């Protein structure tokens, strides 16, 4: 049984030649009310892909993630999910359409237990969420051991796992991850990327922002380099890693 039963159909439809992309960001311009942070940003991915966004601090990577989730005002352009318009849709409705989101910061409920965090992730489910909770405990055994511990008292790595598990509780078709390996030790980073591949192999599209760019691009189908709110480079993960300009400017030589 897959983690995301809803995703499997999307996966199969995406394999066809004329498949609609799972996410399509179409010339999006917008920001936080003041001046625009994003200018004409474009991005497209299918349901079986891992797509990685890299770029310097303040490039607008988090802002782009938030714009998919209705947390940023989009002034121009469109965002479509499986062909359906979700531009400026309210966050709780975006969740309902099958998008999970792990913010860069403050991504757990610190004074609630691990189990309660997962339960909050399943808030919109009307059916029994316990099977999915068990799957999450299988995927992240660490969380199973600590299910009654307060999230606020967990280590950074454990918190990232919890945040990811929380976002998966609704069995989304698309998972947005904003720097899932930030602040983790190398061992934990490797584990996290393994987990992400595993989640993707279950048919969930992954759109993530990463600072550990080399490692992230290594598992990415497509990579997007964003700078000052604009697309700079777009290519497969492997090609971006081989591109000397990208390596020099964005991968630390």
């Amino acid at each position, binding site marked *: 049984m897959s983690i995301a039963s809803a995703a499997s159909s999307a996966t199969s439809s995406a394999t066809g030649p004329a498949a609609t992309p799972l996410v399509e960001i179409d010339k999006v311009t917008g920001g936080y009310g003041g001046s625009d942070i994003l200018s004409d940003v474009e991005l497209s991915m299918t349901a079986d892909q891992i797509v990685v966004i890299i770029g310097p601090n303040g490039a607008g990577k988090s802002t782009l993630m938030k714009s998919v*989730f209705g*947390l940023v005002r989009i002034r121009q352009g469109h965002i479509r999910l499986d062909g359906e318009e979700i531009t400026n849709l309210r*966050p*709780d409705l975006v*969740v*309902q359409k099958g998008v999970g*989101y792990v*913010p860069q910061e*403050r*991504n*757990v*409920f*610190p*004074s*609630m237990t691990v189990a*309660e965090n997962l*339960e*909050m*992730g399943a*808030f*919109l489910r009307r059916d029994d969420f316990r099977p999915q909770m068990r799957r999450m405990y299988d995927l992240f055994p660490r969380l199973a051991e600590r299910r009654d511990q*307060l999230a*606020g008292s967990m280590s950074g790595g454990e918190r990232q796992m919890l945040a990811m598990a*929380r976002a998966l509780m*609704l069995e989304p078709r698309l998972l947005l991850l904003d720097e899932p390996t930030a602040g983790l030790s190398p061992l934990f980073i490797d584990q996290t990327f393994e987990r992400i591949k595993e989640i993707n192999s279950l048919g969930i599209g992954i759109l993530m922002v990463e600072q550990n760019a080399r490692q992230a691009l290594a598992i990415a189908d497509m990579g997007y380099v964003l700078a000052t709110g604009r697309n700079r480079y777009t290519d497969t993960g492997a090609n971006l890693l081989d591109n000397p300009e990208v390596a020099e400017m964005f991968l630390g030589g």
Partner: protein
Amino acid sequence: MDVVQLFVYGIVLGSILTLGAIGVSLIYGILRFAHFAQGDVAAFGAYIALSVVVASGLPALAALPVAMLAAAGLAILIDQTVYRRLRGASPVILLISSFGMALVIRSLIQLVWGPHNQTFASGIQIPYRVGGLVLKPDHLLIVAAAVALVVGLHLFLTRTRMGKAMRAMSDNMDLALVSGVPAERVVMVTWALAGALGAAAGVFLGMDTRLHPQMGWSVLLPVFAAAILGGIGKPYGAIAGGLVIGVAMEMSTMVIDPAYKPAVAFAIMVLVLVVRPQGIFAGKVL
């Protein structure tokens, strides 16, 4: 008066303040503003109970559920008609609005029930005597009912979906929203709870002393003192805060004029604010 006796009175007053302070804390935890009309919502509940008592001849405690329902309704009504329109505004604006709302409710009370003192006329209370201690039946009822309500609230917050959603919202509002927690429904439940618990505080205060249109404004200061002492936004802290303030207010009458009881609550509050503004009982929010 006997120290132990005063302590008992302090626990009774403390139970009442606790219920009020929990309401203040719940609202603060979710909406992040100090609700100055909380005392007057409590007074409204007390007067509703009075009407039930007068109409039915039942004891005040039996009228409690009606009072709690009515006050919950009033709190939701205020929120939907006024505070909801100010959601985007700063806490300062909401605070001033609630100050005005306090006066609106008080005027309504005065209009409907009149400006004079009234009591629940519970007949003559035959006190129990335990050793040198005098225990009025009402006092026992108040403390027992307050404990029951607090336990009920605890179960609600830790066992139910809605209760957990409330804690989640107070813990991390943005994450709650992106998890699909329906903010406006949680807000409504918060008002209902704060109103109902406030009404209980009001009814108990009426049983303990008397009903008066100013009663809500008079308890506002000790109620906030209790909430702040416990760490505003933390209902569990409010329990300890309420008891400390209640006991301190009653015990202080051994050394100072009882007229200055509110000053005692105030002094403790200012001390806490200056020394440890996050409240003395560190603990989780909600």
